[in-house]
């Protein structure tokens, strides 16, 4: 399998998946992943595996065999028609050969088609598109099963994307014509070597000077390569009848061969070589277009940029439980304390004289100080104010529980949101659940009456 065939099969698989939905590719993906390499090579490996499984590789081989056969037929056709051109140009030797008629039949069709091919190449590559459409149409007609139906479009798209199809077709067209021209040249030489031809030119309208000039102009390039050009006298003399002298016959014959070589064989040879060079460099640069959605989606499956590593330190069966309780000591008085309030909130609220204010607990030091104080003088009623915008983490809950253990009765006041803001209902729910677990009563407004008197 050449690199091109691999890309071709990969593109075919992409088209199949685009049109008929994803294939069952678990095994292919796994194999491609374990083989490693960069993304294009993994995509190719996966596609090749799928192609092999679905018989696409075989279909491709059949295709290539068919193409080779068609190429052979085409080559044979070219050889035969080239020979035909030469026979038609020279005739059977019974009548003198009209040199310009011979030249026209040898070169005319070739040059017209060469011109049309060049125009097609220059103007937007229409030529390739037309032939491409013909190719698609043919492949649709000849596709025997659905699997192979995407083979031809895939090659076309692959080449089209890199503007390579014109060069591929250029190689084909020009080499076929080159073959035809060479065959014509060979037959021409054979015929002229084994038969005697006389050469004439004829005109009704033009003057002899025109023919002299034309013959010399056409012969100028071949003359550089060493082909003879008939002398002016010979040309003028050939206007009346075929000269029956050897030197004139040879001069005309070499002139004809020279013109055929220079204007028939050389252009096609050069163009074929040029197209071949473009095709080879282009083919070497052929890559998968990873921006195509079909390939982009494969990335996560074949070369995941992120993968989960699993749990390395498992969760405990249950988190550390916070003990709740009440103080058994003799208690007295009422106290309000706030936990972790930010500075946007005015604090403390207006308090009756009988209620003490323990301020805002935030740092370790303030916690220690208050807990020391509470354990010595436990309050009868403790109200803890919390901001439910904070998260009810274990640290805060442990602090609330510890405070509650140092008072005879404790309630929690979940503060309202400051003006212009709303509480997150989900987070408020978390506070409710957590406080219910601690078995502490809570409310969203200050139970000042209870705090002051002990009654609601």
């Amino acid at each position, binding site marked *: 399998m050449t690199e091109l065939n691999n890309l071709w099969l990969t593109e075919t698989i992409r088209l199949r998946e685009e049109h008929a939905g994803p294939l069952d590719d678990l095994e292919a993906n796994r194999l491609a992943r374990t083989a490693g390499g*960069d993304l294009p090579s993994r995509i190719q490996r996966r596609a090749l595996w799928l192609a092999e499984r679905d018989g696409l590789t075989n279909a491709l081989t059949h295709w290539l065999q068919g193409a080779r056969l068609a190429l052979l037929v085409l080559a044979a056709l070219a050889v035969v028609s080239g020979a035909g051109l030469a026979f038609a140009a020279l005739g059977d030797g019974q009548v003198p050969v009209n040199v310009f008629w011979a030249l026209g039949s040898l070169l005319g069709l070739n040059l017209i088609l060469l011109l049309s091919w060049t125009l097609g190449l220059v103007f937007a590559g229409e030529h390739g*598109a037309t032939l491409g459409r013909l190719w698609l149409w043919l492949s649709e007609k000849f596709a025997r099963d659905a699997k192979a139906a995407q083979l031809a479009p895939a090659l076309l798209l692959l080449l089209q994307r890199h503007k390579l199809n014109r060069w591929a077709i250029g190689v084909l067209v020009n080499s076929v014509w080159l073959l035809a021209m060479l065959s014509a040249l060979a037959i021409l030489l054979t015929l002229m070597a084994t038969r005697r031809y006389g050469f004439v030119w004829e005109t009704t309208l033009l003057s002899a000077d025109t023919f002299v000039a034309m013959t010399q102009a056409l012969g100028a390039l071949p003359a550089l390569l060493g082909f003879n050009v008939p002398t002016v006298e010979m040309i003028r003399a050939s206007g009346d009848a075929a000269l029956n002298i050897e030197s004139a016959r040879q001069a005309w014959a070499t002139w004809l061969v020279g013109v055929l070589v220079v204007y028939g064989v050389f252009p096609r040879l050069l163009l074929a070589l040029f197209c071949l060079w473009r095709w080879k460099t282009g083919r070497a640069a052929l890559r998968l277009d990873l921006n195509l959605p079909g390939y*982009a989606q494969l990335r996560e499956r074949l*070369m995941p940029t992120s993968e989960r590593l699993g749990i*390395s330190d498992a969760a405990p069966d249950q988190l550390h439980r916070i003990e709740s309780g009440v103080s058994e000591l003799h208690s007295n008085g009422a106290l309000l304390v706030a936990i972790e309030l930010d500075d946007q909130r005015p604090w403390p609220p207006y308090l009756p004289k009988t209620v003490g204010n323990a301020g805002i607990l935030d740092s370790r030091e303030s916690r220690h100080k208050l807990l020391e104080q509470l354990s010595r003088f436990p309050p009868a009623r403790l109200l803890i104010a919390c901001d439910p915008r904070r998260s009810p983490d274990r640290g805060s809950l442990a602090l609330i529980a510890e405070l509650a253990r140092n008072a005879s009765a404790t309630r929690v006041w979940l503060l309202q949101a400051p003006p212009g803001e709303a509480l997150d209902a*989900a987070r408020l729910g*978390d506070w409710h659940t957590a406080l219910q677990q601690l078995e502490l009563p809570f409310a969203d407004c200050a139970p000042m009456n209870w705090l002051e008197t002990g009654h609601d």
Partner: protein
Amino acid sequence: MTKPLKLAVVGHTNVGKTSLLRTLTRDVGFGEVSHRPSTTRHVEGARLSVDGEPLLDLYDTPGLEDAIALLDYLERLERPGERLDGPARLARFLEGSEARQRFEQEAKVLRQLQASDAGLYVIDAREPVLAKYRDELEVLASCGKPLLPVLNFVSSANHREPDWREALARLGLHALVRFDSVAPPEDGERRLYESLALLLENARPQLERLIADQQAQRLARQHSAARLIAELLIDCAACRRSVASNAEQEQHAISELRKAVRQREQRCVEALLKLYAFRPQDAAASDLPLLDGRWGDDLFNPETLKQLGVRVGSGIAAGAAAGAGVDLLVGGLTLGAAALAGAIAGGALQTARSYGSRLLGKIKGQRELTVDDSVLRLLALRQRQLLQALNTRGHAAMDSIQVATPQDKTWREGKLPEALNKARAYPQWSSLNPHPKLNQAERQEQIDALAQQL
């Protein structure tokens, strides 16, 4: 093969550590995210690779919840007359029994941070700088590993970034990164890894490779997305229905066409979601503009068109107001354009074929339905808005993103791109038509051209 860089994602409970991991790994299903505190109670890893080579291991850890008490406990571990440094104190703590009881979760975090090269300290920027966070940082600092603070939720209105910056500076943490895991800035990941590279000089090549790869993938995704949208637009522009000019059948055909276009759009939306590694149900869960109230409006409703500022052409307005917005072009009018475009494209044969059948239809009194220009503009607008939303959507996002109407007017008025005008003349380019030829080279060329314009 280099060893992957290990990072522990640490922080208080409920600040979005798992969310950060989801966004960095583009994995919507990683871990569990909820509003409850201590949702994550285990340490779970995720690996970022480039070209199959692992470069970065990220570890999600449980939240620190009781740092004040832990710091207290750590200080009491020091026996009289000895002076322990941070790591030594931690080692003693991790050996002790409290590391398996009250501070079990904290111990997990500290063990993981010690085993990592650095830590990302995630901060909920909406929170005030409380003493417990300072204590948390002190406990984490005693691991002796570099810490990079990551400010999460900075796109929220009431964030307190300046307070945090000041507080972190006081603790000696001057490098910090803003990274909203729900709406990450386009260069957020790059900034994060660049800041990390400053902290971990040895890991710079790895991190730079990661940055380059992520940038390349971002571009590739955008190209693929543009192609998907271009295909949708070509499909819709080339879509065509032939219908007998009879009011009842016309209505039926219009609703059929409308249904087909909407289904096609939905397919495009699903493909985009898949491309950006979001789940299809992410859209169904009403968090994508298309299915949101404002977006759920009838695609062909002229009010929607007006709302989006699409200027409905005067001749077509009647059809649009009738709830159709579908252009009823008499066959004869489009023939000229089709012939012209066809001739230009060299598809004269193809055109002549459809020409014949359409002429026949015209004689039989049939009319042709195509999708209106404004509908195409709307489709393009909606898809581009969706694309913008996806580009800036973190994989931790749970709720819907507000997508603003784009300010540029190029799509709302003026000429449609040449590719779409061309597509109108090629019914076989639309997957919505019978016997489509989707692989025609010209179609692919036009899709490429349109994708470039998008």
